């Protein structure tokens, strides 16, 4: 981890030097600074966890872009740093992006650390596999670490084909031993075990094809390499205590994501087939989003979301709590000058009632400030459920960001 960070720092520095040597014609500085206290509502389940309910944290993430050759070449550098008062692992830095892009006719070339998103559903991103999850950022798994890559993309009327060579694996981040949201056992952050003899140097490969035809948006993808999801294996360490050690397996995964859009309806489906972690298995997430526009003559839009999640993996694969779950949600978009919007939702396991409920609300204040509120509630947690270790970890975040 440290080694990788140092290496990223090095390549970032080189890119900055290169960027500065170019004549400063089309350069752009942007980014944000955020202050975001978290508030945990309950006393922690485990004694090692901090007992203060208020946990301050701050983020800075500048963005630098430089373009030349009339925009056909671009360097992007986006470092990210978080300080967290209570979780030493959440205090971390990362290069979200540090890459050179070259656009030439139908070809796009990206070299360096990049970020890619694949998929259509809201509650789970099955198909999305290029970037590792930066789990200490948010338990919703939507925050990602930068991924070193060589990406070549070709556009044609027949669709967009994108090839990824991914050297340099990124390990998932986990909360520190004495931090909230860790679960029942501490997670070892420095001793990951790899299925592949090449370890984190395994060259992963991915290929994706996308096409939009009339009301359909279709994506097909394939991946071979270190799976991004680790198995967490309880291991007795020298000190005599038991740690969860992340095991990364070499997997093959095929994915399909489809959205059908008609009038106010969005129909979404993501499905994967994966081998390399226990028996071959499939998983899917599918559902609908329907939006009522201009409620009662106002500018307010209300979107209703419902998705079903199914995952057939066995116990030899990384555990997931989303094996047979239902997601329902509502999105309120005020369409006002402050871009106010609110998303309320819950993922429920119909078998035992385990529920992760959430609220995400945000609005702009003035031209450069935004205010965001996030609530994560874990309720109805059963003793033999996968979320049992987190039952006392419901929290809310109030994030104030300043953009420059």
């Amino acid at each position, binding site marked *: 981890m440290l080694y990788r960070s140092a290496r990223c720092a090095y390549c970032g520095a080189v890119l900055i030097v290169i960027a500065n040597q170019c004549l400063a014609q089309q350069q752009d500085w942007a980014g944000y600074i955020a202050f975001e206290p978290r508030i945990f509502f309950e006393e922690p389940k485990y004694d090692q966890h901090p007992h203060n309910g208020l946990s301050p944290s701050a983020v800075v993430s500048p963005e630098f872009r430089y373009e030349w050759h009339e925009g056909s070449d671009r360097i992007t550098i986006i470092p990210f740093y978080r300080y967290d008062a209570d979780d030493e692992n959440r205090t971390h830095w990362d290069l979200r992006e540090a890459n050179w892009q070259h656009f030439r006719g139908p070809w796009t070339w990206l070299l360096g650390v990049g970020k*890619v998103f694949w998929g259509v559903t809201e509650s789970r991103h099955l198909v999305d596999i290029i970037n590792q999850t930066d789990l200490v950022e948010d338990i919703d798994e939507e925050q990602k670490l930068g991924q070193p890559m060589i990406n070549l993309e070709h*556009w044609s009327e027949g669709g*967009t084909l994108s090839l990824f060579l991914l050297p340099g694996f990124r390990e998932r981040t986990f909360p520190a031993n004495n931090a909230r949201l860790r679960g029942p056992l501490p997670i070892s952050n420095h001793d990951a075990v790899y299925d592949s003899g090449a370890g984190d140097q395994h060259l992963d490969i991915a290929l994706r094809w996308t096409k939009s035809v009339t009301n359909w948006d279709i994506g097909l993808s394939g991946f071979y390499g270190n799976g991004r999801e680790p198995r967490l294996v309880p291991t007795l360490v020298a000190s005599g205590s038991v740690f969860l050690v992340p095991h990364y397996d070499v997997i093959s995964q095929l994915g399909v994501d489809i959205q059908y859009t008609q009038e106010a309806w969005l129909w979404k489906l993501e499905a994967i087939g994966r081998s390399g972690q226990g028996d071959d298995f499939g998983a899917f997430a599918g559902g609908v989003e329907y939006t009522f526009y201009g409620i009662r003559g106002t500018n307010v839009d209300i979107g209703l979301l419902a998705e079903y999640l199914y995952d057939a993996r066995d116990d030899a694969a990384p555990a997931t709590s989303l094996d047979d779950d239902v997601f329902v949600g509502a999105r309120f978009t005020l369409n006002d000058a402050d871009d106010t919007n609110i998303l309320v939702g819950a993922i429920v396991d119909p078998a035992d009632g385990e529920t992760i409920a959430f609220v995400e609300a945000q609005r702009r204040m003035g031209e450069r400030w935004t205010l965001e509120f996030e609530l994560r509630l874990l309720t109805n947690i059963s003793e033999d459920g996968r979320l049992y270790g987190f039952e006392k970890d419901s929290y809310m975040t109030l994030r104030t960001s300043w953009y420059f």
Partner: protein
Amino acid sequence: MKHFVKIIGLLLACTQVTGVAQNSTTLTPEARGLAIAREASHRNEGYGDTTADLTMDLISVDGRTRQRVLSWQILESDNPEDGDKALTIFHEPRDIAGTGFLSHTHISREDDQWLYLPSLKRVKRIASANKSSAFVGSEFAYEDLLSDEVEKFSYRWIRDEPCGNWQCFVVERVPVYDNSGYSREIVWIEQSDYRIYKTDFYDLKDKLEKTLYFEDYHQYLDRFWRAHVLRMENVQTGKKTVLTFKPYLFQTGLTEQAFSPDALKRIR
């Protein structure tokens, strides 16, 4: 973007003032209205592609102004079944910098729209039923900004009358596409170059809701007229939105590829 294009469409124009729309007194009001719309559209044909940087000022009732900075790229369709393609990129406010909105308009089926969220690197197809929704909190609805194809309305010529320093056709048009927030629009089109002078929008209760004024016209390539100021006034709420354009660029060589959903990822 509709108005933009619409406007453009309608406004555009060239040198010959012609026959059908102006001279035929024997036509029915409907046929005459349609002929005027067709002529206005005809005068915008051949612009190829166009790019413009603009500011969008949202002005509240008490005069407080919030500014957005954006750029527009528009590609003229060469397929009679399709309308124009348009890409909006936001630069300010900074928290939405790099956000892209892509629309492909169609004549005989619903439009396609995609949103690009740069922080997530996510391209998202969005429903096209949002026609009447406010565009980023402005007084412009999405339908006001989408490409304005002749076939998307039915027309009726009402009268001719002076408008500012010009002589105008006054034409009523009724959206025939789904999900419009308007019962009808009244458009004042000046008679020499078919530029729009202003448009009145009537809500679904047939009450006047908004008036859009087109100001500061400039001519490009000796043919195409573009208004550099679009002023939308909501007469029901008192709020205003003003679009102020920098000089337009024409025929910069934009391709179909630049308007594909995957190209949104190139924004940033």
